[in-house]
């Protein structure tokens, strides 16, 4: 088995980040909720698990992948490590609107997203399809419950497609908020605007368009 474009490694348990010292060929992910995690543009996830570690929960990780429709390939064991490819069967990414050059932490997980100064906006061209917007407050300021929400407005060619409210995070509610809306077919100018009453919080947005 060989890695190919569209592959990523998901380590399990998510704290087992020593793997970063050794994995060069593909990006390493440390998602904590494998059922809900976004893997845009990822066809196959290699689940790299520390199976002899106490309370490793690898069984639940597999269940979560199965629950999202992923299918497992052949599992290979190397000592206490197990490597198992999972085809995600996810939608095809037509365009990434925010790219993945930088990453920021939201909900304690590193996310490829762009920082948006509050209030602020950005725009990008892309095709129609399903627009996925993810947004969250970076770092510990996300948990300052005395602050107001951040409002995100999403437009395509000037028409409002949807709105997303990102309140201060109060677990177990997620801090990385999701909006998935259909966008009419054809080339579109997408605009994403974020605003809040208090503006001294780093705010991060990711957006991409898929075929379904």
């Amino acid at each position, binding site marked *: 088995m060989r890695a190919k474009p569209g592959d990523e490694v998901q380590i399990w*348990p998510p*704290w*087992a*980040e*020593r793997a*970063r*010292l050794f994995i*060069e060929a593909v*990006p*390493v992910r440390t998602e904590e909720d494998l059922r809900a995690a976004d893997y845009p543009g990822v066809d196959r996830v290699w689940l790299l698990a*520390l199976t002899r*570690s*106490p*309370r*490793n*929960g690898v069984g639940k990780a597999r269940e979560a992948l199965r629950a999202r429709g992923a299918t497992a390939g052949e599992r290979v064991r190397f000592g206490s490590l197990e490597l198992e490819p999972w085809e995600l069967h996810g939608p095809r990414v037509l365009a990434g609107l925010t790219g993945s050059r*930088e*990453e*920021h*932490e939201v909900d*304690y*997980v*590193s996310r490829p997203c762009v920082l948006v100064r509050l209030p602020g906006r950005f725009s990008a061209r892309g095709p129609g399809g399903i627009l996925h917007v993810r947004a969250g407050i*970076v*770092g*510990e300021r996300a*948990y300052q419950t005395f602050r107001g929400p951040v409002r995100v407005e999403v437009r395509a060619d000037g028409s409002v497609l949807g709105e997303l409210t990102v309140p201060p995070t109060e*677990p177990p509610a997620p801090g990385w908020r999701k909006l998935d809306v259909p966008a009419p077919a054809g080339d579109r100018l997408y605009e994403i605007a974020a605003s809040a009453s208090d503006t001294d919080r780093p705010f991060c947005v990711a957006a991409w368009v898929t075929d379904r």
Partner: protein
Amino acid sequence: MSRRLPFAAAVVVFVALFATAAPVGFVRDEGYYFEAAKSCEAWLVLLLHDPFAAIRATEQYWSYNFEHPGLAKLLFASSHLAFTSTLHFLPDAQSWRLPGFFFAALLAFWLAVLGGQRSRACALLAPALFFCTERTFFHAHLAAFDVPICALTAGVGVAWARAIGILPGSPSRMSGGPWLAFVYGCALAVKHNAWLLPPVLVVHALFLPAAARRRAFSTLPWLLLSPLILFAAWPLLWHDPVKHLGDWIAFHTHHVHYAWYYFGRELRAPPFPVVYPLAVLAVALPLPQVVLGAAAGLRLLWDLLRRNLGALRLLELGLAGGAVLPFLLGTTPIFGGIKHWLAFVALLMPEAAALLEETVRTATGAVPWHTRTRALAAGALAALLPGLWQIAHLHPYGTSAYGELAGDLPGAASLGMQRQYWSNNVTSVLPWLNAHAPRGARVFFHEVNVESYRAYLQSGALRADIRYASGPWDAEYAALQWHREFRDREPETWNAFGTKMPATGLYLDEVPQVVVYARPGLPGAP
């Protein structure tokens, strides 16, 4: 019981700590206490040369770290003045820490005294059970206040017990009200946990039989002299004492809450879980100490309910309960692992030792005495072995230690427990930085405060030309300490350095503790 066994326990603890302190990193708070000790030492030198000037200048030398009383800092400074500045006999950190070893030895002594009221075996087992865990062993190395106040809590207990006649032993200078006043004064002059001790003693007195109660209430007024020790050992109070006392009290009654990772939740503000301190102890300590400590606490409570608790055991229960009670309220700051309620663990250990001995004796039944003695030795070894292994395996990374109930470090990481704190684990990567960083390299040390960084430079653990960077954007290398609440620092470093691949790190049983990144192209970069 003679004092030979307590002395032996104290000496063993002192020697063990002295011999194993070198690799222990400088925890964040030690950074502040080292600075305070330097200032105190300068004041002591002034006092020796110009006493009046020193008395006039107390504000200048003692205002730093105003939130903690003076005795421990005075001892750190005196030790450094004697053994390092004057005799050039010890490295800086070792001489600052020496009084910490001394307090730990005192704790061993007093636990042995309390344990010795049950049997000779308990005299040795009580301190052994306490110190044979990496968490407690680690804390005993530090120039900090947690083990000293734990020791003095036990010391106040012993002094009180002697003063009111519930602890057998030959009358001595160290058995009356003045000694109690002195020991309590020392506790007061070490840390504010001592504020809780008089209420415990009053409640204890109320539960005593009539004759002992009378003695107890006639002893209590001696405590009114104790603030003299606080005043004498804390020159900051010599000018404007009301203001400084007010500042001291206000600091602790309005203490900030630091984020703390606990069973997958980041605790940031009250209300905290009521069982928090007990749950943290259960997962952090080795299993034998957890089982024996829990059984000891339950038996003391059970005997209290059955009115079958002797005065000394009642005192141990009261002191243990008093040490942990504030942290069961749900509003007291809970950061710092188990260090704030170490006295709870310590004061349960004499009873835990008795339980262990009874269990072994019951199990061995009517076999000859020498077989029983061997069985007791084997039982003690079995009880201490997991803790000894924890020390051998994890020292000096004491704040990272977890026990069998958690599934050790990996289990605790999966459970979502605080990975480490205080930044001392950074010592593991200093040799790598020394070997790889170019001359004058800027390193982002993350949780390591500038005071501890200076201490690493001073001790030679860190190369003198390596500079302190304020963030990854400003650095060529970054040594990130894994904390849940600081997860944003790692992607921030990736963005700044343009790489996600660490150069090296400290991974304990695969669990990341410290992760080092280097800018691409620099020595050591992957």
